[in-house]
Each structure stands twice: as structure tokens, then as C-alpha cells.
């Protein structure tokens, strides 16, 4: 009855990949079941998300009322409302509530040990769990989202063409991955620091400012950095943050087109790869440190 693990031949590369995928799929399904336990929590959370936007709309109405000009940095009042609603969609993909804190807590309370003992890939597991988390969230959130977008349909320009919609969809998927790997990497700093909540808080602040969650990033175009000919917007464009809120919204609104759009998607994909590598590296270094010092 024992030693049966050795009776089978070593599986080939493809077979191993497929097995890996099966493990991952099971993790996804089980995470889905687990998330569904908390569906009530989700409904409330979704409803709360719409509150800040109401205050934003009032604020910008006042701003536009005061300037008396039709647009600010290329945005009319209607554009602004449409922009905020669209960043909410971006954020629904890129924000990762509880991810970094959860990883750090697992490190602190030792439950991360399980992933050292079992032949399972922790980052892959986290990703499966997060996709499940998102799927359940979308299933619930689609109703309020649809209602709000329907009510606010007057603020939107006509629907973009199919290619733009496709680019929008792609930018959202990439923003999910980018948000995931950035926050997962932050969480793994828990291997070095006892508490990561202040680091996460600082990250959230920077993120809020530079992602376009606070205001459309086009508004940074006129602000000089001190280097001649380079505005803050030029710098921000090469940081990962704008892809988690501003970029998908700008794509939908037709602010980014053609070669610029392709280039931005490539930069976004490159950031996903970089953060994925950072996350793996943090895990490897972190577990090595954990093994040496604590455990």
C-alpha cells in the first residue's frame, strides 16, 4: 500500500502542465464555493462602492460651475462623470481588497507553512482564489453597475467601435493581473516586516493619486518635472499605476488611440511581466528567509 507514488512513470512536460492546470482549476472552483459563503457581504460592499462617486459628481459640478468654461484638460462635465464611472469598472478589476494584508497575516500567524509543506504553488493558488473572488463579485455587482450605467447613459459619448472595445477588454484583464501581482508582492514584504499595513497604506495613497482614480491623468500634462520638455504626465505614463484605473477608462472614451494605444498596451503587459517576476522573487527570497530565521 505504501510507496505507490513511485510505481508510476514520471509524467511528460505536457502532462505535468495539464495536471497543474487541473490543480489550479480545482482551487478556483473551491475558492468560488468559499466566496459564495460570504455573498451577503459582497452585496453590501458593492452598494457602498457607489457612494464616493456621488460626492465626486457634486464636486466636479461645482468646479465646472466656478470655471464657467466648457472643459478642463479636454474633459467636459459629462466626460468627467463618464470617466469616474469607467474608472470604477477599472477598479473593479484592478483593486485587490485584503490581498496584501491576507498574505502578510498568513506569514505572521504561520498558516503560510502549509504551502511550504504541500506540493502546491502558492502564487498560483492566490491567483485562482482571487479570480474566484472577482467572479463572484462580478456576478453580484453586475446588477447595480448596469443600473447606474443605464441611469447615467446620457453622460457617455456614443459607443466606441469593436476594436476599441476589444482593447478596453484587454486593458481590463491586464489591469487585473497588474493589480494582483503588485499587491501580492506587497503582501510578501511580510516576510521582512512584521506589519505591512502601513506600507499598503502608502501604496494606496500613491495609487490613488497616480492611477487616475482621483482625477483624469491628462490634467497632469501641464505640470513640469524640472527636466525640460518632460511633464509629470510623461513620467506617470511609464509607471504601472495608471493602468489600474485611468488607462481602461481613457481607452473607452477614445482618449488613447492607434499607435499610442498599442504602445500603452505593450507597456501595461510589460509591467504585468515585471510584477509577476517580482512576486515570484519575493516569494522565493521570502520563504528562504522565513526558513532561516523563523518558521
Amino acid at each position, binding site marked *: 500500500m*505504501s*510507496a505507490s507514488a513511485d510505481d508510476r512513470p514520471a509524467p511528460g512536460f505536457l502532462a505535468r502542465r495539464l495536471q497543474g492546470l487541473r490543480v489550479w482549476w480545482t482551487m478556483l472552483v473551491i475558492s468560488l464555493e468559499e466566496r459564495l459563503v460570504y455573498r451577503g457581504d459582497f452585496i453590501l460592499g458593492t452598494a457602498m462602492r457607489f457612494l464616493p462617486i456621488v460626492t465626486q459628481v457634486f464636486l466636479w459640478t461645482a468646479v465646472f460651475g466656478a470655471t464657467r468654461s466648457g472643459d478642463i484638460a479636454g474633459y467636459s462635465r459629462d466626460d468627467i462623470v463618464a470617466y469616474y464611472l469607467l474608472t470604477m469598472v477599472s477598479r473593479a478589476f484592478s483593486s485587490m481588497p485584503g490581498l496584501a494584508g491576507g498574505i502578510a497575516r498568513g506569514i505572521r500567524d504561520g498558516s503560510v507553512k502549509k504551502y511550504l509543506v*504541500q*506540493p502546491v504553488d502558492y502564487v498560483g493558488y492566490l491567483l485562482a482564489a482571487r479570480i474566484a473572488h472577482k467572479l463572484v463579485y462580478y456576478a453580484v455587482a453586475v446588477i447595480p453597475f448596469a443600473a447606474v450605467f443605464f441611469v447615467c447613459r446620457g453622460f457617455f459619448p456614443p459607443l466606441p467601435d469593436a476594436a476599441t472595445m476589444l482593447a478596453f477588454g484587454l486593458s481590463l484583464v491586464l489591469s487585473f493581473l497588474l493589480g494582483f501581482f503588485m499587491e501580492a508582492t506587497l503582501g510578501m514584504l511580510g516576510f521582512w516586516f512584521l506589519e505591512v499595513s502601513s506600507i499598503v497604506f502608502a501604496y494606496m495613497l500613491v495609487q490613488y493619486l497616480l492611477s487616475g482614480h482621483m482625477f483624469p491623468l491628462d490634467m497632469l500634462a501641464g505640470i513640469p518635472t524640472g527636466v525640460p520638455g518632460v511633464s509629470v504626465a510623461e513620467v506617470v505614463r511609464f509607471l504601472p499605476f495608471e493602468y489600474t484605473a485611468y488607462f481602461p477608462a481613457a481607452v473607452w472614451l477614445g482618449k488613447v488611440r492607434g499607435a499610442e494605444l498599442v504602445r500603452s498596451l505593450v507597456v501595461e503587459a510589460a509591467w504585468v511581466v515585471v510584477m509577476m517576476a517580482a512576486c515570484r522573487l519575493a516569494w522565493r527570497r521570502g520563504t528562504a528567509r522565513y526558513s532561516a530565521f523563523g518558521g
Partner: protein
Amino acid sequence: MHNSSRPPSPPPPGSPGAPVIHVEGLAKEYRVFDKPEGLLASVTGLFRRTSRTVEALRGVSLTVGRGEFVAMLGPNGAGKTTFLKLLSGIITPTRGRATVLGHVPWERSDDFRRRFALVMGQRNQLWWDLPAAESFRLHKEIYRIDTPRFERTRDELVELLGVGTLLLRPVRDLSLGERMKLELVAALLHEPEVLFLDEPTIGLDVVAQHALHRFLSHVQAERGMTVILTTHYMKDVAALCKRLVVVTQGSILYDGSLDQIVDRFTSHKIVTLDLDAAPDAAAVARWGFPAEIRGPQVVLRIDRARISEALPRILASAGVRDVSVEDVPLEEIVAELFRSGSGAPPPRPAIAAAGAGGGP
């Protein structure tokens, strides 16, 4: 580098097993930072911290053969859990070497991780909010257990532990004992060749402890699994293991059979006399042995060599209704060992080959 060395197949029953676990001079040191009390100290601590090194394990050597059931007994902080963490690859040692099933544990190869299991207290492998059946399904995939084998093993384990009705209830709604049983099922689904159990009976009531003992000894015998169990309950040891390793302060104090520990560390027996009436202290003292008088009962500690000479003499005294001669209880020996710490003579070398029938 992996998968090249296949482990030897299990030996025929009864023969001493080939070494599955081999540990040499394994040591683990931790650096701990002392934080003196007070606000001022906390502020200076931001710039300069005083650290000291704690030796959790100081050069432990041990060989365990296939199919052995070894108990590690020791007080809190003796290094038992550190030892299991090292053998499971959770932590890396400061010094020394170890192989488990031919692998260096802290390299954490998947090949190795598929062949052992570690159970550390409750709330470990099972998903808190889901029924255990779901966690089992995940284990099936993680450990690549094919469906017929998975179902057969699961049903067998579930039946042995009588937990069939608990599989579909969320784990968070289960009692401590029920959870522990399901943790064990989860750990054994992939039929590990080596099982590490860290204080599995802690916090369990007597009935649950018994059930666990029965289950473990059955499964271990059936599968020829190699098991190391840490505990501080003598009951676990007596029920499960032939080989006992006593650890205190990071070192092995005793490694040998359960029976031999009595011979090795005690020179006397406990003789209990029931008398007609409470005896005269002076009369008891005349027997010439350390004695304790509890009403009409006298408990004597008599050197083993002198029992045959002393007993007739004592029994000849008037009023002895009943007598019993017993070994010093294991608990007492072990407690004594714990207290003496490293002061005791190191009995290891002579019995190091225990399991292979070593020892004087």
C-alpha cells in the same frame, strides 16, 4: 537532480527497516531580539537592538527505519517542533545534515513533498468555511491521486475514524476532536510514506485521544508508514510507540525502547503495602528503605537488587494484608529526566541503533 534515487521497497514485515530518516548533528539557532521594558528603551531599540542566540536544537543525530513509530517526548521548548519543522523542510538548519526518503527536506522538491505529511495542531490543511469533503477534493488534485485510489483511501480512513457524517459540514462548525480527525484524513489521503505528527492529542478529551490512538496504530501497521510523533503525554507514547526519544533543551537525552528506559534510569521498584492499621513510623524506618506512610498504606522505594532479600523480611511483619511491586511509573522517570536536563549521562550511543535491536 530529483527522482534519480528511488527509495528501497518496504522490507518484509518483521525485519528491521532500512533507514528512511537520517539525521546527523542537526542544529538550529534562532536570533531573538530582547526588548527591555519602557518607552525610552523602545525608542533606543529603534536604533540598536540587543539580540541573543537561542539554540532550539543542539546537534541532534537520529536514524529511523522504515515502518518505525517513534515518539518524541519533551517539555515545552525542548526543540521537538523545531525538529519536525526541519524534517518537513519548513525551516533550514544552522548546522548538520538530514535526509528523509533520500531527499534533503529543506530543498522542498515536489517529489519529496508528495511523499510525506505533517500534521501540526488544528486548523491546518482544511478550508475553514467549507466542508472537509471539498478540502479532500483539492488534496486529490494537489497530490495527483487517481480517482479510484482516492475514493478507496478516503472511504477507508473515514470509516476507521467514524467521521462519515461530518464530511459535508463546514469545518468551522466542528469540534476540536472532529477537526483533528478530519485533519488526519486529509494528511493521509495521499498515503504518505512518512508522517510527522506534532502534538496530535493536545486539547482532546480522553475518548477522542483513545480513538486517535487506535486509528494511528492501525493505519501505521497497515501501511508500514514511518511516523514521528511529538507529545508531552506519556499516554500517547505508551499506546503507540515502541521507540522513545526524550528531548530536553535541544538535545536527545534518551533514545531507545520504552521498556529499557525503566531499567536505565531507575534502580528501584515501588513496593506498596496495605496494612491492617496505620503503622508506627519507627517500625517502618527499621526496614531501612525510603518510605511514605499514607494512613494504613506504606509506599517503599526498594533497590532492585535487594527486593528478594527485603520482601520476605517486610512481609513477615504483622498486619500486611496486601502487597504490590511495581516499576517506577514512566511519567515519574520522564519528569525526572526533564528536570535533570543534560545532567544525566548520555545514554544515546549504546542505543542509537534502536529499531535494529541495539542496546546492552
